[in-house]
């Protein structure tokens, strides 16, 4: 099949970017979306043009590195699917496909389709951990965790940190990402000690990074490759309120 591509090209962080048109013949419907981009790059290299830079690594939907906005949707037309797991059979012959980077104030574009998501790292380093040093851990079975809690914690912990939630949020809010980690650690018994500080510090860092407010449109859940529930955001709000309240009582 044949595709008309409109791809965002931007030299570096400071440069002004623009959409550039490309035509790609012989696209195989079994190709993954990223393999289609590989094919385009191969063609660009043959023509001595600069290939398109895009984020990708594991190509099996778990590392969270890939992610572009395809025809106005983060990770493309399929819901709950990473860009690398999207295949060209989802597109029609002769279709025009518009490819842009994830956009948000918290995610500056580095080059072409690559964005800087280090804000997520800083949110985690503000408190998204259990302060246990190597060697301090007690015997694993000394902390029973009910099946339901373990499963719920997993549901939150499954986040791959791709940033589609931010890209798809009209407010550029990182609430889903931040809340997933806060929730995972708020419900597990082994991470209760820092529960209040964790919530307050991570949320403060999230704000500092310039992410917007969550206005509960719930779009993030639909585009999230792991289908992380928006109820994590509710839980984050609860943790924030609880921590803010208990802080004064101290």
């Amino acid at each position, binding site marked *: 099949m044949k595709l008309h591509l409109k791809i965002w090209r931007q030299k*570096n962080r400071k440069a002004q970017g623009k959409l550039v048109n490309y035509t790609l013949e012989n696209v*195989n419907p079994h*190709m*993954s979306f*990223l*393999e*289609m981009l*590989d094919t385009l*790059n191969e063609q*660009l*290299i*043959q023509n*001595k*043009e600069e*290939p398109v*830079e895009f*984020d990708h*690594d*594991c*190509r*099996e*939907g*778990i*590392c*969270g590195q890939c992610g572009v906005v395809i025809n106005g949707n983060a990770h493309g037309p399929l819901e709950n*699917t990473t860009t690398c*797991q999207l295949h060209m059979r989802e597109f029609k012959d002769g279709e025009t496909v518009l490819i842009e980077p994830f956009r948000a104030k918290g995610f500056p574009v580095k*080059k072409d389709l*690559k964005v*800087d*998501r280090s804000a997520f*790292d800083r949110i*985690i*380093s*503000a408190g998204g*951990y*259990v302060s*246990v040093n*190597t*060697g*301090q*851990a*007690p*015997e*694993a*079975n000394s902390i*029973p*965790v*009910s*099946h339901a809690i*373990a*499963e719920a*914690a*997993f549901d939150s*912990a*499954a986040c*791959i*940190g791709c940033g589609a939630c931010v890209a798809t949020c009209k407010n550029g809010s990182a609430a889903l990402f931040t809340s997933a980690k806060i929730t995972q650690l708020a419900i*597990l018994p*082994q991470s209760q000690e820092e529960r209040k500080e964790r919530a307050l510090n991570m949320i403060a860092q999230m704000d500092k990074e310039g992410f917007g407010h969550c206005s509960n449109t719930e779009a993030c859940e639909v585009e999230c490759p792991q289908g992380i529930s928006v109820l994590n955001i509710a839980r984050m709000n609860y943790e924030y309120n609880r921590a803010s309240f208990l802080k004064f009582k101290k």
Partner: protein
Amino acid sequence: MKLDAKIPQGPLEEKWLNYKKTARLVNPANRKKLDVIVVGTGLAGSSVAASLGEMGYNVKSFCFQDTPRRAHSVAAQGGVNAAKNYKNDGDSVYRMFVDTLKGGDFRAREANVYRLAECSLNLIDQAVAQGVPFGREYGGYLNNRSFGGVQVSRTFYARGQTGQQLLLGTYQALMRQVDKKTVALYSSHEMLDLVVIDERARGIIVRNLETGEIEKHAAHAVVLATGGFGKIYYLSTLAMGCNGSAIWRAHKKGAFFASPSWTQIHPTSLPQSGDYQSKLTLMSESLRNDGRIWVPKKAEDTREANTIPEEERDYYLERRYPAFGNLAPRDISSRAAKERIDAGHGVGPLKNAVYLDFSKAIKEQGQAKIAEKYGNLFRMYEKITGTNAYKEPMKISPAAHFSMGGLWVDYELMTTIPGLFALGEANFADHGANRLGANSLLQASVDGYFIAPYTIANYLADQIRTGKISTDHPEFEKAVKENKEKINNLLRIKGSRSVDYYHKKLGKLLYDYCGLTRTAEGLTYAIEEIKKLREEFYKNVYVPGENDTMNAELEKAGRVADYLEIGVLMCYDALTRNESCGAHFREEFQTEEGEAQRNDVDFQYISAWEWPGSLEQEPILNKEELKFEFVQPTIRSYK
């Protein structure tokens, strides 16, 4: 050179205890004066960086990904082994040690393997304390599943994303240290070279992948935890960025490279569907519990799978290995598949796959039961192939997966360059010639959390008086100059072929001649072909763009340039090992039934290759003899 593995004296159970008892220590006040560089942020890299940071050392952590959490440990699905014996089914450290040693076809050190099993107990404790949501029973206690090659349930899991959850645990521990400023994080930085001063590892040269700037970083010790190089086959289950460059460049600075040809080829991956294909997605091995593997009896049969009658199907694993059937170990299943495909019985448009058929299981257990067990895998299969595997059999094929080989390290995980350590998949250590399922997460974590923090301290103990290492040393300048030159060379060639073209060619050569089966003739041919390919690469590759900007093609070019050198060494390694063991199967050395024939008299050693100084010379083989004091090598049989 005489290789000294520095294995502590004493009974097997006491070796590691004895080591820890007598290892030298660094006073807490002195630790912040000591710098350690850790390259790689997977399970091994993150855990060692975090652990050293907690102890108070000054750590710099590097990764080429945009954040440490993307390291490829994230992709491991099945689980992590530990001899906790929570299932009360007779598991013990000793039993796990024997299973691992046997699984590796007796080509690993007893002491290392025992330590791996021993430390597995602590790892589960550590991970649980970090908040890793392992699967639980309804009573709240940890659950286990069973995995290939063993008779006990010792695999801990977090659904099908165990690697991700373990990695996030260490990533969070790392980010905690970043927040405390004991660890400085350098993501989007790729190591270009190791700097050796007065025969000790003293620093690295890195390239900032966003700006192209070449940076110098000095330290008292350097840790490489850069993972495996299975991506050398181009089509593999690995991430696109996985590479062997860090360990290869360290090898060229004097670190020995052990058993480079031992690559695990995983039997249940999705087959290649076209030339454009960039990676082969792994389907969990657990599918083989209910799926039956077959090919048409007639070669070049083009009928649809469902139209081939039962009597015209060849369930070759059940036929050849009646005792284990479809559950035969990875290396054996992969080889059997290749044998059928090569004989013209392969299926699919490229005739490169075998069927994994669930129709019998669905008939017996019902579709709902199968969906409950494997629903997510069937969904993933449909997402990728567009085929409903409840209706027609899956097509699977073998794919390069894990490098058992890597930098040679002693018991302290130190390479032949003092001060240079290699952890996780980047070293060769514990898996022998074949890795058991769910042992890779274990080895990476144990190396990083529980072994290297002791052994690195032991090394650093006499480094306090050295003082700060300066990056002004001429060796740093020299390395920067060489690497800039190397990069500019690549950019100047301006040929007509893309980097991927060479990578694909190399991958094909390796699959054909240094893959599931090898022959002396094929390997000799491959060595010449790879050398020719390398020459052509330097004449005709086209690397677009500049150095001073983000340039993915340039990154790839550097990695493929190294692969073209590693590939030759792999072939030499396979060529000189005149036996079949584990993943290494030489067609000349097989029994009458076509099974691997190990030679314990002549090849009970680890091949540790020494860089001869230039590409023109043949690599130098050093041997570390393996001694089995506690377990006697036996022949594996799955009939």
